[in-house]
C-alpha cells in the first residue's frame, strides 16, 4: 500500500500538560484497530483543529500499554476500552471516561475451520484451546465471561494468546487453536482466506448479539478516558475533544463505508480498499451515535469484569466515578 502522508513529528516526553492546555497527546491502544477509528478519523477530518485543540496521536499497540503510558504521564488522554476505568478504580487510580465510541466490543467467538462440525456451542469448548489476542485482554475476559455464563469453570478451556492480525488469522487457519475471539478486520480477512463464512458461536457486533450475551443494548468499549485530575483541570479541552469525536461519530453515521475509508490515510486500507470499506460499513453498527454512556451499558461492563477479572472481583466499585457524559452533552 502506498502511504499518504509523512508521520507526525515525534513529540518528546510529555509532562502532563498544565491547566487549559489546548495541546493534547492521545495514546491509542492500537491505531490500526477499527474500533479506534474515530480518533484517527477526527484528526483526518480536521475536527480537532476546528474545535481548537492540537492533538498528537501516539500508537501504543495495545490498550493496557496506552493506559500505562497515561498513568505514567506520557500521554494525557487514552483511546482505550472503558473497562480500564473500572480496573483502575480497583487499583486506586482515578480514571474517568468522557466519550464513548463503541457501543459494543465488536468481538466474536469463531470456531476454527477444522472444528466446524465439532463445536456448536459454548459447552463444546470444554477441554478445547481458545485463542485470544493476549491473556488478560478484553478478548480473554470475553471468553471467561461466556464460560461462566454457561455454567462452566474458567479453567474448562485452555486460553492461548495468538495476538491480532496475521498471527491470529494464521493460528485459526492452521487450526493451532480450536476457536478464537476475534475482531475486525481479522474476521473479514479470515473469511476471505478460508473462502466461506466461519462458524460464529457468539457475536456481539450486533444489537441482537449484545442482548443475547450481555442482556443489554450497549456495552461501552472503545472510549476516550483520562485521569480524573486531568479532566478536572482541563474541562475545556476535554469538552473540545468530546465534541470533535461526537461530530466524527455523526459523520460516520451519515456516510457510507467507502466515503469514510476515503477519508482515512490510505495505508490503513492495507492494500485491499474494498475490504476496508466493507469492514467499516460493518463497524458502523457497533459504534455509538452520540458518544454517551448508558447506565445499562456500564453496569453490563462491570458485571463482565466481576466475573472475568479477579483483580476486580467483588471490590466495591463506584461506577459514577468511572465515566461522565458531562462533556458530550
Amino acid at each position, binding site marked *: 500500500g502506498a502511504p499518504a502522508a509523512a508521520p507526525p513529528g515525534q513529540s518528546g516526553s510529555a509532562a502532563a500538560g498544565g491547566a487549559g492546555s489546548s495541546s493534547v497527546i492521545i495514546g491509542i491502544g492500537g491505531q490500526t484497530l477499527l474500533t479506534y477509528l474515530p480518533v484517527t478519523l477526527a484528526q483526518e477530518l480536521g475536527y480537532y483543529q476546528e474545535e481548537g485543540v492540537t492533538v498528537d496521536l501516539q500508537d501504543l499497540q495495545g490498550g493496557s500499554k496506552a*493506559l500505562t503510558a497515561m498513568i*505514567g504521564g506520557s500521554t494525557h488522554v487514552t483511546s482505550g476500552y472503558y473497562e480500564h476505568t473500572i*480496573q483502575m478504580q480497583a*487499583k486506586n487510580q482515578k480514571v474517568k471516561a468522557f466519550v464513548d465510541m463503541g457501543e459494543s466490543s465488536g468481538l466474536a467467538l469463531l470456531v476454527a475451520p477444522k472444528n466446524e462440525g465439532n463445536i456448536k456451542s459454548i459447552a463444546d469448548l470444554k477441554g478445547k484451546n481458545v485463542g485470544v489476542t493476549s491473556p488478560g485482554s478484553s478478548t480473554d475476559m470475553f471468553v471467561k465471561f461466556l464460560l461462566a455464563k454457561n455454567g462452566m469453570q474458567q479453567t474448562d478451556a485452555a*486460553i*492461548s*494468546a*495468538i495476538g491480532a492480525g496475521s*498471527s491470529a488469522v*494464521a493460528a485459526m487457519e492452521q487450526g493451532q487453536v480450536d476457536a478464537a475471539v476475534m475482531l475486525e478486520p481479522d474476521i473479514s480477512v479470515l473469511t476471505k482466506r478460508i473462502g466461506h463464512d466461519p462458524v460464529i458461536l457468539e457475536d456481539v457486533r450486533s444489537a441482537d448479539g449484545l442482548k443475547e450475551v450481555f442482556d443489554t443494548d450497549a456495552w461501552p468499549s472503545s472510549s476516550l478516558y483520562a485521569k480524573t485530575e486531568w479532566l478536572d483541570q482541563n474541562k475545556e479541552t476535554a469538552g473540545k475533544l468530546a465534541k470533535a469525536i461526537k461530530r466524527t461519530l455523526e459523520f460516520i453515521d451519515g456516510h457510507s463505508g467507502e466515503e469514510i475509508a476515503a477519508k482515512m490515510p490510505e495505508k490503513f486500507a492495507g492494500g485491499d480498499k474494498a475490504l476496508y470499506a466493507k469492514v467499516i460499513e460493518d463497524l458502523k453498527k457497533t459504534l455509538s451515535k452520540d458518544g454517551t454512556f448508558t447506565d445499562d451499558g456500564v453496569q453490563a461492563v462491570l458485571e463482565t469484569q466481576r466475573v472475568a477479572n479477579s483483580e476486580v472481583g467483588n471490590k466495591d466499585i463506584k461506577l459514577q466515578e468511572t465515566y461522565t457524559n458531562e462533556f458530550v452533552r
Partner: protein
Amino acid sequence: MSPLAMRSTQLLLTIAVLGAWELSVRAGIVDEFFFPLPSDILQTVWVWVSSGFVFPHLWVTMQEAILAFLVGAAVGLLLGFVLARVRFLERLLDPFLQMFNALPRVVLAPIFLLWFGLGIWSKVAFGFTLVFFIVFFNTLEGVKSVDRVLVDNARMLGASEKQLLRHVFIPSALTWIFSSLHISVGFAITGAVVGEYLGASAGVGYAIAQAQGVFDTQGVFAGMFILMIVVLIIDLLVNRLERHLLRWRPVQSS
C-alpha cells in the same frame, strides 16, 4: 575475599536496594502502580510457588530457553568455526548475516507462529535468533584470533582440519565462546519469554502477559523475579563449567 563473605555482601546489597525501594514506595516517592512494594512482590512469588501455579509455566519456559540456547549455541559454533576456516564463505555470507541480525524479531513473530506453531518451537526459534548471532560472531572472531604459531605447530604435527578444530581452535576460542554463552543465557530466556508474551498458552511470559493485561504489576514483577533466580542458577552452572574448561589459564592475581 572469601566466597562466603562475597555472597553475604551481595545479599546485603540486595537487601539494601530492596529496602530503599520499599521505603520510597511507602513514602510515596515512587509510584506503586509501576513499582509495587517488594514485600508484596515477594508475597506474590510465594503464592505462585507455594500454590504450584508457577511450575508448569516455568517448566515450559525452561524447555524453550534451554532448547534455544543449545540449538543456537550449536549452530552458532558450527557456522562460526566453518566461516572462520573458510575465508571465502565468511566474506560471502558476512553481509547477509549482519542483515539478518538486524531484523527485529518481534516483527517476525507472526512468521514464527506460522512456521513453528503456537507450541514451544516458535519460542525456541525466537530465542535461537538471539543466541545464534551472539555465539556466531564471537566464535568467528575467536577462531580468527588464534595464535598463528599454535596452528602452524599443530599442522606440522600432522593435525587434520578436524583435529585442528578439536585441539587448537575450540580450546583457543573457548574464552570467546564462554563470553558469548554468558551473554546468551540471558538472551535465551528473554527470547523464550518474549515469544510467549506474543503468543502462547503457557510459560512465564504468558503469566507475565496475563498479569500485565489486568494491570497486576505485582504479578509482572513476581514473574521477572522468578526468571532472575533461574538465570542466577544457570549462570552459576555455566561459571562452574567455564572454570573447569579453562583451568589451564594462569590464575589472575589482582
